[in-house]
């Protein structure tokens, strides 16, 4: 029993589910059992077996791999539970692709050979395509995803070819610096993780695909894979400062642009999708900084992001399931109706905004220190500092858009539509349990980051880098002590609590006075340059895919101009071509 076993099992499961009939009563228990046993087997093979993979030349398992491996299995189990409560149609196919995705992702992280890596990488992309397509009306989004990911896969192959040319082996190991290869491999990683400018498939996918798919793949797995590959890339190649700087700038731009796009979204899922893009920027910054703290921070941020972003998506899924909409202007005041979802989304929002003591803060804290000590800081002090500024300010903007999200969905006055929700649409265990788990993970990782993540993965040696450390555990204890004192004070004061109407100047609050979250930042959107930029963004000017498509159609249009369908014209062209070739020869 080694790390390959879960991969084999889940591949087999994929085949089995594909054959199973689409009967809910049959598929759901089967999938749950399968996913959970798979998780247990994975843990067993990770922790309780000697997993020295030396006997297998094409595979490897260092601490980073193992951490990611664990994470993927964990998400597999969580998402299977959620999906079983969420997905209603084509369950057999869904779970077939689901296990295929797990198998391929697990494969990616333990492969020690570029060829095997590429195969697994490709399969995971294809599985995503198939999963998106399950939803009717998601064809365009699926196609876009496929083209961007597939296109970047070809860059991956090109990059591997260059490395092979340089080293003569496909084994993933130290390689000499090659700008082209690095660029190709980075592009592949960025496309998978969703860095700018190859991010555009994520919002489309989030809007159209079934929600657990978005939560599972673009928000969690693909980030993990993309950043995992990037980490490896920075390990095997010695990046010159210029290249590092360029990557960091990409990271900084990703943070700021994506978060600005997120600010103005009216759709909860799209808002989250843009944050999924924005967070990648932090990881890129951390990893590209070349500083050990930055690397740890970037990698840790990847883990954290997978957790809180999935939590956020799952919460949104719960809201959508309950109310039937993800349009922010139609929601409001749901906190009383969905208390668990609210709490978990609140925690996840704090985490993503980097509020201490949650996990997102810890990783960002490491990343900032990493950038301050970045390898580029000597050659490009200004640019490095601007990257830091982008990261710091991006955090504020993230907070802003999550305040908007929380206000629009859960707080504020409730929308008139929300009173009519059937009770059986409230929180179900299968939907709530994953959220609780993920929210708990946010807190645990935040409080005990050092003990349960950094030490096991990177060894205790790295902590010597930090002279004295931020101890979130102590801080939280202190804050709890403060709250206890506060409550004591409150209790001693003997103040009575009473419910009474809201004061808006004498009248009762009317439904028309509901401030929905949608226009929360309208005054930012309307400021001079933003308005114009947002307008252009709405026209998809900044979407590489759309622009390429447009350019392609334009060229095709020109070609079509020649392609008249008149035989004599074609003959003339052939004839003219012949003459040119003849002359050229």
């Amino acid at each position, binding site marked *: 029993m080694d790390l390959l076993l879960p991969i084999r099992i889940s591949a087999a499961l994929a085949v089995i589910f594909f054959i199973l009939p689409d009967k809910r009563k049959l598929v759901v228990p089967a999938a749950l059992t399968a996913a959970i046993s798979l998780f247990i087997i994975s843990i067993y093979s990770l922790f309780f077996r000697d997993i020295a993979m030396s006997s297998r030349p094409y595979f490897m398992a260092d601490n980073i791999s193992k951490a990611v491996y664990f994470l993927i299995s964990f998400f597999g189990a969580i998402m299977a539970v959620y999906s079983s409560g969420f997905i209603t149609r084509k369950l057999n196919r869904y779970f077939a692709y689901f296990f295929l995705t797990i198998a391929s992702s697990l494969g990616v992280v333990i492969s020690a050979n570029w060829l095997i890596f590429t195969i697994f990488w490709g399969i995971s992309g294809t599985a995503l395509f198939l999963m998106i397509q399950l939803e009717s009306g998601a064809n365009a989004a699926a196609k876009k995803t496929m083209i961007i990911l597939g296109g970047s896969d070809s860059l991956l192959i090109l990059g591997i070819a260059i490395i092979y040319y340089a080293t003569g082996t496909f084994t993933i190991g130290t390689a000499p610096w090659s700008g082209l290869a690095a660029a190709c491999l980075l592009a592949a990683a960025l496309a998978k993780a969703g860095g700018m400018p190859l991010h555009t498939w994520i919002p489309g996918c989030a809007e159209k695909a079934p929600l657990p798919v978005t939560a599972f793949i673009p928000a969690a797995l693909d980030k993990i894979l993309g950043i995992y590959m990037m980490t490896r890339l920075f390990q095997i190649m010695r990046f010159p400062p210029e290249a590092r700087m360029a990557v960091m700038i990409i990271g900084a731009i990703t943070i700021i642009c994506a978060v600005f796009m997120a600010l103005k979204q009216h759709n909860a899922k799209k808002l989250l999708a843009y944050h999924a893009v924005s967070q990648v920027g932090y990881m890129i910054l951390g990893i590209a900084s070349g500083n050990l703290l930055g690397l740890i921070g970037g990698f840790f941020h990847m883990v954290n992001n997978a957790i809180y972003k999935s939590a956020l998506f799952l919460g949104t899924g719960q809201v959508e399931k309950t109310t039937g909409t993800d349009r922010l202007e139609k929601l409001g005041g749901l906190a009383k109706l969905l208390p668990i979802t609210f709490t978990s989304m609140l925690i996840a929002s704090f985490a993503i905004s980097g509020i201490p003591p949650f996990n997102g803060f810890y990783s960002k804290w490491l990343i900032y220190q990493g950038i301050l000590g970045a390898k580029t800081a000597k050659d490009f002090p200004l640019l490095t500092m601007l990257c830091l500024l982008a990261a710091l300010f991006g955090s*504020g903007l993230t907070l802003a858009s999550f305040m908007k999200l929380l206000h629009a969905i859960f*707080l504020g006055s409730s929308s008139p539509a929300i009173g009519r929700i059937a009770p059986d649409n409230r929180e179900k265990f299968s939907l709530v349990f994953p959220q609780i788990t993920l929210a708990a993970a946010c807190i645990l990782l935040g409080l005990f980051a050092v003990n349960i993540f950094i030490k096991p993965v990177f060894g205790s040696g790295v902590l010597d880098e930090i002279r*004295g450390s931020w101890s979130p555990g102590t801080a939280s204890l202190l804050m709890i002590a*403060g709250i206890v004192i506060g409550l004591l004070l409150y209790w001693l004061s003997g103040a009575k609590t009473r419910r009474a109407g809201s004061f808006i*100047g004498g009248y009762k609050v009317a439904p028309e006075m509901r401030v929905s979250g949608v226009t929360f930042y309208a005054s930012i959107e309307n400021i001079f340059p933003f308005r114009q930029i947002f307008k252009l963004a709405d026209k998809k000017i900044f979407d590489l895919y759309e622009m390429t498509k447009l350019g392609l159609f334009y060229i095709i249009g020109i070609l079509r101009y020649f392609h008249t369908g008149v035989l004599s014209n074609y003959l003339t062209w052939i004839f003219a071509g012949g003459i040119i070739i003849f002359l050229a020869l």
Partner: protein
Amino acid sequence: MTTLFHYLIFPGLLFALVVGMIASWIERKVTARVQWRVGPPMLQPLYDVMKLFIKENIVPEHAHYLTFAAAPLISFVSAGLAATIIGMSIFFPSSGFQGDLIVVAYLLVIPALSLILGAAASANPLASLGASREMKMVLSYELIFWIALIVAWIKTGGLLNLSLFAVNGAVGASVSGAIAFALMLITMQAKLGRVPFDAAEAETEISGGTYIEYSGPLLGFFKMSQYIMLVAVPALVSIIFLGGASIGKYVILLVLIILAENTNPRLKITQCLRLFWFFLLPVGLIAIILATLGY
């Protein structure tokens, strides 16, 4: 146990609260003198808070109770934690840890954040408007706050430890440092929600905005965290830019805050955004460039 003592008594909650109340009294007294009035007695801030704790606590009908009630407490304890870390670096310089500056900076956002959440939870349209304004305000000043910090980092070679700034000497003494210090002063005014940056509260526009629904002890906690902020923020600025905090430096900063408060009308929220993003940002960038060039 010592940590708990530091947090609760000195230099944390209690100490910061007492100093904050005195500062608040100075603020009101000086304001009154500027306006040809006598002003309140010295214990007035204390009376105000004590009074609030004997009052009834009114929770709006449609509010989300837990969020509404938790927000002031969270605000209070996190402001207290920030004050503790800052105070420790002043009084016990050896106790600091690397990166405490970032921790403090983030902790100082939490009071604003809980104010936003509390206001949003109160289900009052005016409070919602106030919450949206407060958030925009945070966005505005955070940018400049970080720019000023980055200048300080460049000047000190990336110091992340608060207690080391005092050893390092005043950042504000150089050209870029002086610019950054000026930016920080404006940011400080905004962080404390004082005129001209009090659009979120704007009593005469949206009846107190974010605070409109709070009463009794809950309002008392917000008041107390305001008092603590009035200590913590100027102290932080003083440490970073004036090379350590002392009573004299603190009072100078306090007086600057009060004067700015009393000689300006309130800015509109859009004007705040423009001011910070389009006027102060270029200035800040120039400061960063100057700093990288060694000025």
